[in-house]
């Protein structure tokens, strides 16, 4: 088995998150090395590029390349922002990183700021995890006290201030420009791009936004070298990745594995299917990723390219596992309601279309679907997809398209027979309160 955790390595629940524990695990060595050896920002970025680290927030954009876009020579403030606004159904890795290993994120952000010449940073933390926000604030205080943040970090000439910013319940703020608007104290409504944050970001200044896990990976890359990090995974898919497994498995939880590990191995690590039931489908990258039927999924390896080939996305690595007791109509209806609830209301197709999708699916689930509803759903989803300011529109349309594509018979059955293909009693048995064994 390919268990070589880095970010989650050596962690002991709530007990080893403090600075001294992190330092004992070799923490802040990467930063010390950069400051002491005066490694140039360009060299840091080159190391990142060599690592083939791809953004862990969902889009999978090469991090080194992203960092190289920031106009370092731009006079005045530049910002690094960490996106810890994790709220996509199925995703729960950033919470564990922040509460168990907050200093890895802080160190990664400091290194990022150094590489991009940023003077200030913010970590935007999801509203519902207030306790994690408080802990991160404590970790920041520790880092400040240890001269790891502030003026002349570790006695060098690099200075950087870092703060935590707390959200308050809006999934869309996970979109990077909505997140910036939210830090500016506004509604989290995404901006039209271009301009991109690299040139016009927070307060109109050059800004880089990266995911929590991305930042947390950075110290390890600097410490072990970019190539070694890449070799943990596979080319174009470097390093380890944390997968959040939820749903019908025995041991839901976070698993850090090397990219390219077969899905079957991951499923095994998560204890396999509950009660010996059969796997029906998997959403491999958070609720926005297209659903993948069991047989296709079992042939996949867990990396960006393989999942893309299967017609889905690795996304944030949130793997929602559904067994044979799952009614796909009901599952999709719940996701559609989520996107309807979370649409920011700014642009027309998403504002109007997500509600339309949900209402039609709700009708079908209630047993009052119409014969042309599936065509209508496909058409409405098509009219949202690719027409909105941000990816939330695509995220809302994607599940509708893939669920109907792979499970058309179930939807048709539901419309014709005004009930689920999976008997209600079976569904009920499959969705009882289940508390997984802690891993």
């Amino acid at each position: 088995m390919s268990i070589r955790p880095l970010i989650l390595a050596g962690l002991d629940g709530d007990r080893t998150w403090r600075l001294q524990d992190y330092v004992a695990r070799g923490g802040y060595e990467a930063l010390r090395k950069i400051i002491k050896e005066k490694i140039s920002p360009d060299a840091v970025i080159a190391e990142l590029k060599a690592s083939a680290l791809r953004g862990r927030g969902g889009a999978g954009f090469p991090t080194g390349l992203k960092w190289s876009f920031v106009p370092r020579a731009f006079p005045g403030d530049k910002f690094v922002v960490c996106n810890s606004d994790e709220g996509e159904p199925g995703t729960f890795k950033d919470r564990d990183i922040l509460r168990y290993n907050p200093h890895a994120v802080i160190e990664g952000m400091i290194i990022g700021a150094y590489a991009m010449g940023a003077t200030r940073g913010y970590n935007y933390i999801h509203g519902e995890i207030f306790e994690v926000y408080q802990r991160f604030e404590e970790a920041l205080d520790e880092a400040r006290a240890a001269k790891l943040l502030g003026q002349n970090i570790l006695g060098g000439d690099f200075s950087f201030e870092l703060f935590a910013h707390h959200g308050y319940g809006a999934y869309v703020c996970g979109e990077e420009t909505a997140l910036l608007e939210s830090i500016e104290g506004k509604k989290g409504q995404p901006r039209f791009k271009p301009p991109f944050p690299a040139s016009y970001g927070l307060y109109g200044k050059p800004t880089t936004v990266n995911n929590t896990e991305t930042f947390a990976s950075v110290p390890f890359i600097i410490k072990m070298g970019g190539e070694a990090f890449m070799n943990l995974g596979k080319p174009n898919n470097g390093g380890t990745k944390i997968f959040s497994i939820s749903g019908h498995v025995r041991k839901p939880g976070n698993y850090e594995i090397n990219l390219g590990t077969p899905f079957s191995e991951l499923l095994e690590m998560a204890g396999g299917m509950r009660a010996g039931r059969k796997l029906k489908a998997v959403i491999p990258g958070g609720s926005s990723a297209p659903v993948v039927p069991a047989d296709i999924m079992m042939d996949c390896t867990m990396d960006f390219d393989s999942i893309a080939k299967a017609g889905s996305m690795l996304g944030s690595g949130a793997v929602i596992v559904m067994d044979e007791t799952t009614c796909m109509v009901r599952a999709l209806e719940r996701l559609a309601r989520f996107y309807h609830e979370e649409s920011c209301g700014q642009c027309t197709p998403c504002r109007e279309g997500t509600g339309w999708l949900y209402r039609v699916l709700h009708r079908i689930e209630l047993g009052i679907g119409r014969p042309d509803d599936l065509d209508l759903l496909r058409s409405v989803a098509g009219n949202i997809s690719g027409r909105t300011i941000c990816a939330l529109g695509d995220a809302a349309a994607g599940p509708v398209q893939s669920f109907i594509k792979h499970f058309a018979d179930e939807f048709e059955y539901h419309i014709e027979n005004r009930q689920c293909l999976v008997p209600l009693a079976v569904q009920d048995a499959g969705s009882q309160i289940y508390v997984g064994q802690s891993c």
Partner: protein
Amino acid sequence: MLSQESLQQIDREIAKYPSDRRQSAIISALRIAQQEKGWLSKELIEFIAGYIGIPPIAAWEVASFYNMFDLEPVGRHKITVCTNLPCALSGGIHAADYLKQKLGIGFNETTPDGMFTLKEGECMGACGDAPVLLHNNHRMCGFMTIEKIDQMLADLEKQ
């Protein structure tokens, strides 16, 4: 309108941002105000807007956009249960049903004694701990079996 302590907390949030960017602290300021007062009345929102120095409608936009803000009074204990798909697969809906039955209220309702309000939540980013619920926005409770729910309610009633 707000206690000295809350105002100090708000000042600490304001200090995180450049001095001409006080608006950045609006979400935190509203959060701190709500924690003290239980919910955000329009008067409170206007006070916070004035304190931060933004038009009241800008604060209202924010208060009405982020769904953890309560624009109506809620019970002493607001319990928000996640029923999104990953939680639902592990019993989120059953947990919510149990709460409804136990408290005798539905979602968005408050018990007649003003103790409990039940809300349906969206993803809290803790699907691995399903079933998950939030107590008064800030305390997350995971792995909520029937026994743990009973225990929690008993503890809260004692408070």
